[in-house]
């Protein structure tokens, strides 16, 4: 048994492939947070006054708040005065107007990461917005999308070009003072992606944002806002990496989705921030607020996430099922290895009649990783005929890891049907031996068993992402058996 555990341990160690640092001259503000810093950020971005007011309100609110302590994760205190709140690659002019003006060094970074930004090389059918530290460095396929009336650009650009849309929807799903990290983000967010799909338009390609933290000691606070107007459809992908550094870096993002009547938003994440080393040194603290509002009847928001990176993952992509007959789905794979900690899950708030939600959560713990599913299903009085189905499965690899499930269910309407199923299993010596007796290496066996375990979630991902996710899991587990 002991040899088996030792082998699994070996399998789990493998190096982070995206840990390189790029030497790019940056325009950064000194570490620390104050109203002045916020004014500076807002000025650097040439924002209209309403944005500055919004930020300052958020900041003042944040000052009255405390870091949440209800989750199962632990970390040394974060010194918010020691973080750089704005870091941007120094542009030669005002900022890149098109990809041709983007610093070639930056384009090479994204190539190295497998995300070529040059349109002719871009993945067919995927439009990419690349966010490097605090700012968006380029968005592909913009003109083609514009022909359909689709707006897909950096958040900064949206503030300049479409202030009315930003003003109408910003903070309408995740209010400024929603929680500690959302308030912080609202005060200091520097960029992110913005997307608007007009009435009745089906976005013909996957939209995607690729986030990259590069600068030292900087936090990344991006904000994504996606609005699908009546009958619109969009599938959106998000990918993330960061260099290997010994210090922990804070990432506190906010994502807001708005689905109007009969609109459908599919939001997929493959999160591979640097997880820290074997002993838990370094890595990204990922405190993220993601929420979708099914504002219109028959709207549908689907979250799919594969979380393999970060030292800490704290996120609960949620759906507010306001519209009658609206549908919320959440499919998640979270893997924790070494000393990674994840406290993740979802909230499904049923407000409208005949609203439906599905939750499928797969947690994999290896090494000394700790993995918690935390989910809330809330059915309000108004939600006649609401349905929820929740399935939480945990898979343990080795015997020093932990898995927890915290389901919260609140039902205020007697016609609601809420189902919850949970299971915990271990990659057993028996399963491993069976596969090895058939000639598979222990490593291949573990990765085969893990992908089988995650299959229900992977099939929700767009094709290219599913392949990437599968590879990522393999990478994250490799070395644990040998």
């Amino acid at each position: 048994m002991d040899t088996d555990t030792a082998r699994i341990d070996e399998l789990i160690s493998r190096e982070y492939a995206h840990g390189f640092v790029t030497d790019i001259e940056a325009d950064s503000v000194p570490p620390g947070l104050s109203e002045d810093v916020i004014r500076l950020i807002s000025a650097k971005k040439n924002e209209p006054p309403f944005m500055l007011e919004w930020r300052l309100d958020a900041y003042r609110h944040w000052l009255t708040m405390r870091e949440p302590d209800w989750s199962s994760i632990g970390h040394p205190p974060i010194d918010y005065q020691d973080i750089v709140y704005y870091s941007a690659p120094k542009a030669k002019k005002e900022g890149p107007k098109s990809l041709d003006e983007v610093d070639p060094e930056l384009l090479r970074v994204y190539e190295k990461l497998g995300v070529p930004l040059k349109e002719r090389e871009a993945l067919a059918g995927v439009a990419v917005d690349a966010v490097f530290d605090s700012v968006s460095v380029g968005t592909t396929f913009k003109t083609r999308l514009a022909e359909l009336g689709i707006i897909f650009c950096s958040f900064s650009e949206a503030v300049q070009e479409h202030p009315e849309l930003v003003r109408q929807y910003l903070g309408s799903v995740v209010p400024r003072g929603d929680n500690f990290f959302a308030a912080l983000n609202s005060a200091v967010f520097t960029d992110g992606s913005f997307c608007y799909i007009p009435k009745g338009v089906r976005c013909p390609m996957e939209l995607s944002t690729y986030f990259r933290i590069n600068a030292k000691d900087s936090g990344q606070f991006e904000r994504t806002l996606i609005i699908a107007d009546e009958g619109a459809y969009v599938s959106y992908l998000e990918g993330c990496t960061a260099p290997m550094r010994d210090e922990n870096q804070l990432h506190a993002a906010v994502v807001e989705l708005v689905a109007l009547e009969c609109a459908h938003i599919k939001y997929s994440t493959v999160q591979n921030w640097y997880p820290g080393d074997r002993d838990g040194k370094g890595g990204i603290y990922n405190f993220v607020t993601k929420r979708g509002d099914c504002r219109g009847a028959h709207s549908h928001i689907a979250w799919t996430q594969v979380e393999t990176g970060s030292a800490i993952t704290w996120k609960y992509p949620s759906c507010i099922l306001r519209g009658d007959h609206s549908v919320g789905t959440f499919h998640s794979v979270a893997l924790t290895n070494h000393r990674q900690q994840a406290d993740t899950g979802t909230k499904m708030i049923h407000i409208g009649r005949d609203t439906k939600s599905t939750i499928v959560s797969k947690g994999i713990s290896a090494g000394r990783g700790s993995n918690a599913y935390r989910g809330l299903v809330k059915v309000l009085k108004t939600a006649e005929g609401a349905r929820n189905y929740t399935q939480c499965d945990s898979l343990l690899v080795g015997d020093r890891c932990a898995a927890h499930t915290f389901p919260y269910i609140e039902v205020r309407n007697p016609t609601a049907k809420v189902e919850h199923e949970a299971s915990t299993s271990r990659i057993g010596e028996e399963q491993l031996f069976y596969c090895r007796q058939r000639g598979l290496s222990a490593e291949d066996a573990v990765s085969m068993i893990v992908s089988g375990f995650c299959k229900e979630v992977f099939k929700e991902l767009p094709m290219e992402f599913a392949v990437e996710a599968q590879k990522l899991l393999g990478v994250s587990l490799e070395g644990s058996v040998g």
Partner: protein
Amino acid sequence: MQPILEIRGLEASVDDKPILRGIDLTVNPGEIHAIMGPNGSGKSTLAQVLAGRETFTVTAGHVRYLGADLLARAPEERARDGVFLAFQYPVEIAGVSNVYLLKAALNAARRHRGEPELDAMDFLALVRSKLKSMEMPDDLLYRSVNEGFSGGEKKRNEILQMALLEPRLAILDEADSGLDIDALQVVARGINALRAPERAMIVVTHYQRLLDYVVPDYVHVLSQGRIVRSGGKELAFELEARGYGWIDDAVPAAAGAR
């Protein structure tokens, strides 16, 4: 002729509890050896030790497979070299299709032998032909490994894997347990179809009934971790008629009659 398997003085224990207490056995190409014995006599342990299960510790003796030391090698190396164990309790693997595991297994062996891997088309053609011979429906390929399989389907799936991997040494651990007579006959036909001059089989069974269909060349009776009696196929009938109590009372035969 080089024996396929030579076991000499093999002792093995689990958690310091001795299970095998000195096994001697020689298996030549083309032979089928039946290992019989009461529950707890060490039959399954022997099968698993030969396949390399690490829950058991070999404390003495050695085993040569095709002339080379078997015990020093990892389970997957033994498998790729042609040692196959049909499990008494095949494990379930959720979300992994049967066909995926079969292909991975076959290609692991082919790589090891320096042969090109089979592509999906060639593999499917091959596995379909084997499937037919095991009277198994196609959909069994696409279901998760052993998940929701009936007892009979699990056992047939083991024989299917054996047919596909074409081992030099097949060890069948209670291939008949839990089968009704129809399923038993299918499994037996599958096993018999794999009898070949270059292949040897060790058939571990508690009851004689499998041996009505798969006729062994030799029968060995295991008791308390030792082979206490060896003989031809008639020995199985004798056991069936007189039970294992008769063996326990008998004076242990010279260990390893062959």
